[in-house]
Every structure is written in C-alpha cells, then in structure tokens.
C-alpha cells in the first residue's frame, strides 16, 4: 500500500508530459488475458517517457483502437521494480541491466540517446574535455574563471541527478569513470527539474538527455558536438541505451508493439526526431 503510494508520488513529481496519471493504480495486466482490447501499461525512466509518448501516438495512428496504453514515470528503477512485481507490462529504463536486478526480466533495446552537458544560455562555453568534466563535477575546479572557454566567472553550481536515476548511472559510466561527483552538487529527481535549474542559474552546469536541452547552451564533449548526427554516427562519446523491460519474453500485443518499435521504418523515423534509432 505505502510502497505503491511512494511510487505514485515519484511519478507525480515528473513535471514533463504525462499521458495518464498513474500506473500505481493500474492493475497487473497479462497481455493474453485481455482479449477484447489489450492494455499495455508502462512506468519508469523520465528520459524514456517523451519517446514512449511519441511511439504510442505513432502506433495508435497505424493501428487505431487496437491497444490501450497507460504511461507513468518515476525513474528507471521504479519501472524495473514495477515490471518485476507485475504492476505494469513494460518498465522503461535508461540504464543497462544490473546484477542486482530481479531475475526473469528481459531488456529489449529500443533506441540510443545522447547525454549532453549544458550550461545556462549566458555562458557560451564551447567545449569540455573528459579531464575538465571530471575536474568540474568532482569539485576539483570550482570557479568558472578556471575553466578554459567559459564566458563568465564566479563559482560553479553543479546540477546532477539523484542516485537512483538512469541518467546518473550513465553519466557516471560515460563521463566520470572512477571519479566521484562532489557532495555539494544539487541532485534533482528528473530531467525537467535539471533543465529548469540550469536555465535559471547563470552559474550552473548540468547533464541531461538530448530531448530536454532546448533553450540551454549545449557544450561539446571531447570536441564532438552533442546532437543526433554525431550520436548516430557513434562519434559522440556520451551516448547510452534506452530499454523497454518486460517480465519474460514479450508475447501477444506486447511483442507486436516492441517489434514495431524495433523494425518499423515509421517508428525509426519517430525515434530519429530526437533520439538515435537502432537501425
């Protein structure tokens, strides 16, 4: 009871697009049981959510009224916990499988995404090397005047994600390696909150999914610009995988939906608008 309420609270926190309020109240759905009109419920990563919304809309355009969808957010770990417990049929995850994940889960890769480094629009920092990123985020460098290329001076405000976030996990792996993020960093619970914090604070730097970077100053990483072209070409070093996690191999309507995402050219085009398709 209380666990569900917490998951619901997490979902409510996500201020970005939300199709149907809460999967916390959604009953477990077996794809085969609902014969008349199968329902696919999802919860999980706030990074995957905007992509899921687009894919659902595209799928319903192709197969109108074929399937009912419910989408909630909450973070990658909420999605994985929900799907493992049978509360939803798909858990969206922006992090790779971990050894501590519950057994019996199948990770279906649907797309790739770029994690961009962003500063406030007033700070036209062009590029950061991996060394500088690590120095900034670990707290070794704390003033913008010590960062080559920064157009402002003053203390650096770090904006990061909470420990359970898939974006945090990917950032640690792709950018930080073994270096630790400084304890003075402000940890936000969603991509949207990071974007809001970076936009309103001229001294801030943060990392977020490419889809959320509108209105911010995108910083190149290791000399490669963070955009779809470089991520698709594989030259941008900060890209990661998006997964739809199912309990066991997907079957029935679920299989049809996931196969459509992975193989259909229309779906590929939808993904390519802001993310990196697999093919």
């Amino acid at each position, binding site marked *: 009871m209380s666990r569900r309420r917490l998951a619901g609270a997490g979902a409510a926190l996500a201020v970005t697009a939300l199709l149907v309020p809460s999967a916390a109240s959604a009953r477990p759905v077996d794809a085969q049981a609902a014969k008349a009109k199968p329902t696919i419920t999802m919860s999980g990563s706030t990074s995957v959510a905007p992509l899921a919304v687009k894919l659902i809309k595209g799928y319903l355009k192709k197969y109108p009224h074929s399937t009912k969808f419910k989408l909630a957010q909450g973070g990658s770990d909420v999605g994985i916990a929900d799907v493992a417990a049978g509360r939803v049929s798909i858990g969206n995850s922006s992090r790779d499988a971990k050894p*501590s994940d519950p057994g019996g889960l199948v990770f279906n890769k649907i797309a790739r995404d770029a994690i961009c480094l962003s500063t406030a629009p007033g700070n036209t920092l062009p590029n950061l090397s991996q060394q500088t990123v690590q120095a900034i985020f670990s707290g070794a460098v704390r003033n913008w005047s010590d960062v080559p290329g920064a157009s402002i001076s003053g203390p650096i405000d770090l904006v990061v994600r*909470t*420990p*359970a976030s898939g974006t945090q996990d990917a950032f640690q792996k792709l950018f930080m390696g073994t270096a630790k993020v400084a304890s003075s*960093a402000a*940890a936000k619970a969603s991509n949207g909150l990071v974007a*809001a914090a970076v936009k309103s604070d001229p001294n801030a730097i943060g990392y977020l999914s490419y889809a959320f970077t509108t209105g911010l100053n995108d910083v190149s990483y290791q000399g490669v610009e963070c955009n779809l072209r470089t991520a698709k070409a594989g030259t941008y070093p900060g890209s990661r995988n998006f997964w739809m996690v199912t309990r066991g191999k997907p079957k029935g309507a679920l299989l049809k939906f996931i196969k459509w995402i992975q193989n259909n050219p229309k779906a590929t085009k939808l993904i390519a608008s802001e993310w990196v398709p697999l093919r």
Partner: protein
Amino acid sequence: VSDGALARMRRPWSDVRAERMLGALACLVLLIIGGMVAFVFAKAWPSFAHNGLGWFGPDHVDHTVDQQLTEVFDSPAKPQDFRYEVSAWPLLWGTVVTTAGALAVGGAIALLASIFLVEFAPPWMRRLLEPVVRLLAAVPSVVYGLIGILVLVPFVGNHLISTERKESVQFIVQLSGTSVIVAVAILTVMIVPIMVAIMTDALRSVPRGWIEGAAALGVNRWRVMWTISVRAARPAFVAAAVLATARALGESIMLSMVSGSQGFAPNPLDGLTFLFEPTRPLAATIVDNAEGLSVKPFGQTIYAFAAVLLVSTFLLSLAGWAAKQPMKRFGNAV
C-alpha cells in the same frame, strides 16, 4: 442481493444495527493505522538495527548523508553484503528548521490576521476575505512548488545572494537559490490559511458576554481581543498549530522542488548565509529517492525515513494534547 434485501437496507436502521456498523467502521480505521505502522516499521527495521543511535547522528564532511545514500543504493546484490550506513541528522535538522521557521512566521501572521478579520475588518472585507482564505487552504502544494522554482528560487539566487557570499562557502555547499528562506516562505504561505480558518472560528466562539463585559468597563477593542478573546481561544490556537505543523512536516513535493536537493544541515551560526543555505527535509528526501525503492537496502532506508515521520506526527498530537491541558481553565467553551 435480492430486491428484498435492498429494500430492507433502505429502511431506517435500528440503533443496534447502526452501532454495530459504525463501530465496525471505526475499528477498521484503527486497524488500517495499526497495520500501516507495523508495515513501515517492519520494512524500516534493518536500517535502524544496523546504525543504532548513529542513525540520528550528524554526518561527516567527507562522508555526507547523500554519499551514504548513494553507497546504500549501490549495495552489492548479496543480502549479507548490503550496506546500511546512514547518519540522517542533516535531514532531521532540515525538517525541524523549515517546520519551525514556517510555524513561527505563519503563527504570528495568522494570529494578527484573524484578530483583524474577527474584530476590525469592515463587513464587506470579511465577506471577501474569508472564502478566499478557505480557498487558499485547498491549493495543491505542487502549484506552490512550481511558483517557487520558476519565480522565487531564481530571484533569490540571482539577486539576493552575492558572488562573494557564494564563494565564501563554495567548498562545502553551493548557494543557488534553492534555500531555507524560500522553503520557509512558501511553507508559511501554505499553512497560514489553515491557521486563519481555525483561529477566526475560535475567536468568534468566545462567549459574547465576556467581551461585552470587558467593553462595558471601558477597555478598548484591541485590549479586549488581546486579554480576553486570545486567551480564551488558546486551546484552539494549539489545535491550529498542530494541524499546521502536521502539514509542514509532511509537505514533500513543494519542498523537494525549492529547498535545495542537497542533504545539508544549515548552520544558524553562519549568520545571514544560513537563510540561503540549501537543505532537504525528510519528506522531500523520500520523494526525491522514491525511484530507488527496488534496491532492497535503499528501500528499507527510505522506509526508515517514513517511520521517523510517522512517529513525529504521533509525538506532535501528544504534545498538542499536553499543551492544551493547563489552558482548559480559561474556558472549555472554545
């Protein structure tokens, strides 16, 4: 159910039946509360058992509560290797600071506003203000949170905090606008309407004779309010304070958005900087970290936070009851 049974249900209930049905309902509420407390404590136990009293202790600069939470989250998969180390003092202190700050500021404002509404306001203003106050009491907290994050936080961060102030503490904490002062300000706005609603009702139910008696002796209205009405209504003020504190303690979404995103214990000795330091109360920590519930030791730590919040609300009700006892002699009528 047949039509006959339905018809029987619609007939007026006998007293015995009403007593049994309502009694069952009341017992159900007790059962739900009892079950909830037992569930939360059972889930939270490993976190308390592992840390002992250190759970409530202060953290270390090189090993902050946020770093501890990250380590708990990254625990190895084997149950015997689970990490539980948490020193939650910064979160508890953050809860105390925001709640007490809002209660002190809000209590004073609410008291003066209700005296005005009951005794001094012209009737047209009273008719306008009272529904507005009741409406304000029902505004969802996420709306306040949005206003805070889009308007107040950038304003405080960009205009009230100087670069020198930021640099003076930058190795420990970053001052970016999400701060104690914004949290207290918005929390105050949230709890004042509840307190005003209860306080005006209480001031109005002070027996007319007491007030008229004092007025007949030549005491002016302000003194009558201050010496008679406010004194007589004190038990209701305690009730208002308890309700407001409960809302402030449990407020999560708004505080998670504006109060700082860092488990830091603001230090009153820092002077003015104290007001601009970030903090993250318990309830906000729960919301921020709810995504990690699937990791077992992390989930148990989150439940431990919930357990502490539950106990503090019980203590709060108890304290409210105890505070009311000596005031009863001023009048049970209120």
